């Protein structure tokens, strides 16, 4: 597929993504050059930052939510185990742990190769991310601060 065709398809996907947020009446920041969207949502205990990006070359819509916690060196192995335990419980999406930075992020993606993806899918991605991040945000934060143990995280 030519670069121009790829970009045209990706721009249509991006329009559909923005339309989903517009219909929700959400306040969000657009970066049309990068085909990305970001917004901050209030969670039950901590705020949730969500970023969507449309990748024309890979025909992929990616969602990333970086959690507002940083794990110091001495807690990083525990975090790697906690992330594995959290991921085991997820149906879709996963937590990534950037070991050398001590940061945790939730990630989800959808390919739009050879397909027409509806706004419902982006809405599903957004809502799944919000529910999942909200469920684990405070747990990861408390684990990073030593307020709970790895055993407490499991419960």
């Amino acid at each position, binding site marked *: 597929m030519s670069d121009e065709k790829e970009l045209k398809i990706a721009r249509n996907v991006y329009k559909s993504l923005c339309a989903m947020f517009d219909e929700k009446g959400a306040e969000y920041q657009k970066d049309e050059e990068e085909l990305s969207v970001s917004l901050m949502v209030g969670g039950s205990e901590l705020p949730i930052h969500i970023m969507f990006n449309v*990748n024309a070359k890979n025909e992929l819509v990616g969602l990333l939510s970086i959690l507002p916690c940083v794990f110091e060196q001495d807690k990083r192995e525990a975090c790697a*185990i906690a992330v*594995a335990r959290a991921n*085991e419980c997820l149906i879709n999406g996963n937590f*990534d742990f950037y*070991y050398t930075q001590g940061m945790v992020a939730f990630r989800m993606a959808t390919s739009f190769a*050879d397909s027409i993806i509806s706004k419902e899918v982006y809405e599903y991605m957004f809502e799944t991310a919000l529910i999942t991040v909200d469920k684990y945000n405070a747990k990861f934060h408390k684990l990073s601060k030593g307020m709970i143990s790895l055993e407490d995280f499991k419960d």
Partner: protein
Amino acid sequence: MDDKDIKQAKAVYATLCEMLDECNWSYRKKEEALAIEAEVSADDLDIKVVMQVDAERQLVSIMSLLPFTVRENRRTAIAVAVSVTNARLANGSFDYDYENGKIAFRMMSSYRGSLIGKGLLKYMLMCACSTVANYDDKFFMVSVSEMQTAEIINYLN
């Protein structure tokens, strides 16, 4: 779940089987479960994959269980290795059961309200197979070695 959901799931499953037939893949159909099982030879290992259409959740999934169990004294090392690896992937992730030492690759795609083409299902299959082929021997090496965290990160780089 209504008839429309089941009809759509069956249509996605039919598209999946058509794609596999067109690519001359050898696979087993599990029609009741809207699933297929296949084995792929890559380098020196056989990768087993299960693709399934979940009518209730409107998801297509691909799962591949790695063919070894991490021994108990290397479970934390593999938790680090899986974390470092997942953070590099654009789509899909390795799930790691710390309690039993099993690792599986998982990728999902929602099809709600959408028209899913064979290209997307082929992408899922290819992406899963290449990711598993890239990392399963690395995870195995970490699991049987004495590598410490810094060495694991360097090794996976």
